[in-house]
């Protein structure tokens, strides 16, 4: 119902107001910052900042995890409406069960492939 989203909209505004309000209020109450060169350096456990390399080359593995996440996220989105109508539609025949079994079967093939290729090692 569209009425339900009145609460959502108000909560959205409240959340923005709360987070912004906390930042603004704390900026007023805070002690003024005393700058000194050390405070402007990135934290390096006491080592000179010159030793720090601000950008580290990052493993492409993170990209792989993100893609696999998208694939299974989309799968989840398909599973939700299926779960909701399952009770009603199973009365009419096994189609609804077989439909999802074949869908999951094909995705299981993708999953097994990713596993065999070492994409799920976490290394």
């Amino acid at each position, binding site marked *: 119902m569209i009425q*339900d989203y*009145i*609460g*959502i909209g*108000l*909560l*959205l505004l*409240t*959340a*923005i107001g*709360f*987070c*912004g309000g*906390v*930042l603004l*209020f*704390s*900026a007023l*109450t*805070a*002690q003024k*910052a005393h700058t000194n060169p050390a*405070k*402007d*350096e*990135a*934290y*390096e*456990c006491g080592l000179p900042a010159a030793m*720090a*390399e*601000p*950008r*580290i080359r990052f493993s492409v593995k*993170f990209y792989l*995890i993100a893609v696999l*996440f998208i694939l*299974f*996220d989309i799968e*989840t*989105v398909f*599973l*939700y409406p299926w*779960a*909701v*109508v*399952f*009770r*009603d539609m*199973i*009365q009419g025949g*096994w189609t609804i069960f077989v439909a*999802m*079994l074949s869908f*999951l079967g094909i995705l299981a093939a993708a*999953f097994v492939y990713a596993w065999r290729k070492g994409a*799920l*090692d*976490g*290394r």
Partner: protein
Amino acid sequence: MSPVFSNLLAQPGVALAAEAAVKIAVVIVVLMGMVAYTVLAERRICALIQDRLGPNRVGAFGLLQPIADSFKLLLKENVLPGHVNRFWYVLAPTIAMAPPLLTLAVIPFGNTLAGFNLVIADLDVGVLWIFSIASLGVYGIVLAGWASNSKYPFLGGMRSAAQLISYEVPMGLSVVSVFLLVGSLKLSNVVAYQAGTWLIFKAPLAFLIFLVSAFAETNRLPFDLPEAEQELVGGYNTEYGQMKFALFFLAEYANMIVASALIVTLFFGGWQVPFVRVEAFGPILAGALGVAAFFVKLLAFIVFFIWVRWTLPRFRYDQLMRLGWRVLLPLALLNIVATALALALKLRA
């Protein structure tokens, strides 16, 4: 009440908005109070587990400690380090804090009281709303790590993001078997379904997968790799101070409370009072008892979260990834097929 005011309230939209505003105010105040005292509870319980006393000087039993802490954080020096990307550095904590506030909207914290449904918005998409909003929390952490322009926060942020998205999958899949049984995503329907038996007894494997994923999603031990002190200093919030740091801290505890509330609603009957027919006490008392039951279950889970944190050691990063992708994910998929098959055989018999 003045006639102008009562006329305004007679408009259907305005009355609904006023009702929602009151609920939002109550929920936010209660949540913030709970966050403050969960922090204290965490420190006292961890002290108990480690045979220490914990903070007990400010007020009786240290009960004023959260107030003292918040004043301290408000008065701290407002440092904006020179090496950060200013815009995203300031905005990241608010992006982390907003999702737990927004997800609370759909969780019913009671049945009805004086004719009002005790939920801010009982959406048809229910749990899907929680997952979609919670998935935005990743941005706060990634942006904090990136905007800090510093080694440890960046490492912590990327690790944390990888962990969050990895465990979102088994978490989302585990509840499918719940929806198969209930036939709806709406949380009020999920609670109503548990009037007789709680869902933990009907879908125990789903509960187990959901619980483990919830620990990972809230960055709690044994899954607290994003802030693994021994290797990452403080993780994504290393370069933060004052209220900006406090917002990350609050968000972490708010997330824990939301996760506990969701577990209670999905698997432990929500506001249902076990063994007692509360309707017999009249509508007002029955409603109040429902709210009380919800909060007792919620507090029990919060204590459980804290207890686990101070009992278990931390996973290694590759172990964490393997548990999510190689154990929980296939288990959740098998659980869905098994539940569907059992339900089909039962309904078609």
